[in-house]
């Protein structure tokens, strides 16, 4: 549920006050952009999609209900916009759990002597993680972004993606597993270079 200040802004925006909607845009523009950018991978496209997300949100405002959290509602629009683009590009891949788990056991566990935060701290690690993320199927990428970057709860993710909370739990686990496998694979590639 939206807080009082946000609810007030939404009510004024629904009544036709553009300035109130502009405040909401300012509040969320970077987060929506970041999510879309990592979903579609192209900056210009992400900028256009971010703008279209807010225009669609404004059009859909009469249908927004106060019991719905504005952030999840907005991210749902962004998620749909990003998926539309990916579908057009035919980049959506559906990977079965068995496919994902097949190669995971081959990878060595990380060095327990190092602290978790240290392992991915350097620039190269960040680049590898970005690369790994881009290679994940869209449904894994989006759920990781919502959980790890947007810090959404399972309930919020379920509302954003329109899926059951049980599905969120299992899909996040699969997505994490795939991300770790991909990251370790790329780390191995780099060591071999």
């Amino acid at each position, binding site marked *: 549920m939206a807080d009082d200040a946000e609810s007030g802004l939404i009510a004024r925006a*629904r*009544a*036709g006050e*553009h*300035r109130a*909607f*502009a*405040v909401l*845009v*300012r509040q969320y*523009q*970077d987060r929506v*952009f*970041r999510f879309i*950018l*990592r979903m579609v991978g192209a900056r210009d496209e992400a*900028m256009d999609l*971010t*703008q279209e997300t*807010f*225009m669609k949100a*404004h*059009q*859909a*405002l*009469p*249908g927004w209900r106060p019991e719905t959290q504005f952030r999840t509602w907005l991210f749902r629009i962004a998620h749909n916009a990003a998926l539309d683009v990916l579908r057009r590009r035919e980049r959506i891949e559906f990977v079965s759990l068995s496919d994902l788990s097949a190669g995971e056991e081959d990878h060595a*566990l*990380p060095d*327990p002597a190092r602290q*978790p*935060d240290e*392992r*991915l*701290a350097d620039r190269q*690690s*960040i680049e590898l*993680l*970005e690369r790994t993320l881009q290679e994940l199927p869209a449904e894994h990428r989006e759920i*990781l972004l919502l*959980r*790890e*970057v947007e810090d959404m*709860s*399972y309930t919020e993710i379920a509302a954003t993606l329109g899926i059951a909370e049980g599905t969120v*739990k*299992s899909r*996040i*686990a*699969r997505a*994490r*597993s795939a*991300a*770790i496998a991909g*990251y370790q694979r790329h780390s191995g590639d780099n060591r071999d270079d």
Partner: protein
Amino acid sequence: MTDQPTPMHAPDLPELSAYLDGELDAGGRLRVAAHLATCPGCAARLAELQALSAGFRALPEEKLGFDLAGVIEGRLAHAPRPTAARGRRDWWAGLPVAVGAAASIAAGVFMGSTLVAGGAATAPRMAAMRVFDTMPPGNLCIGLESCYAKGSIK
């Protein structure tokens, strides 16, 4: 050999992952924590998940780089307003247009009815129909009887 049944290895990955996210209930949390204390494999798996989360937190915070709100405001100023809001507030705004349209239709119906019902609307004499005569109007008469007969009509 042992008589004790082999315990099922718990927790599975979704449970470990939910444990990391703080999404397990109190009982689940205690159970996973107790298991982690005695299972190096699961502890290492949890460390991998924690490392991944740390990696995501280290990702650069990309920014849009300009004030989108101003752009959106400009676009909204020229865009039609959302349907429900318009329905609530502007129902009276179209009233003059509706009254004008109704008046135009009424005037049209009235004028049409006077033309049809008045009886004064008689068909005009169709002199132009003479173009279908054997001799088109304005042609020279070449001495046929019909020419003179037609002239006598006048």
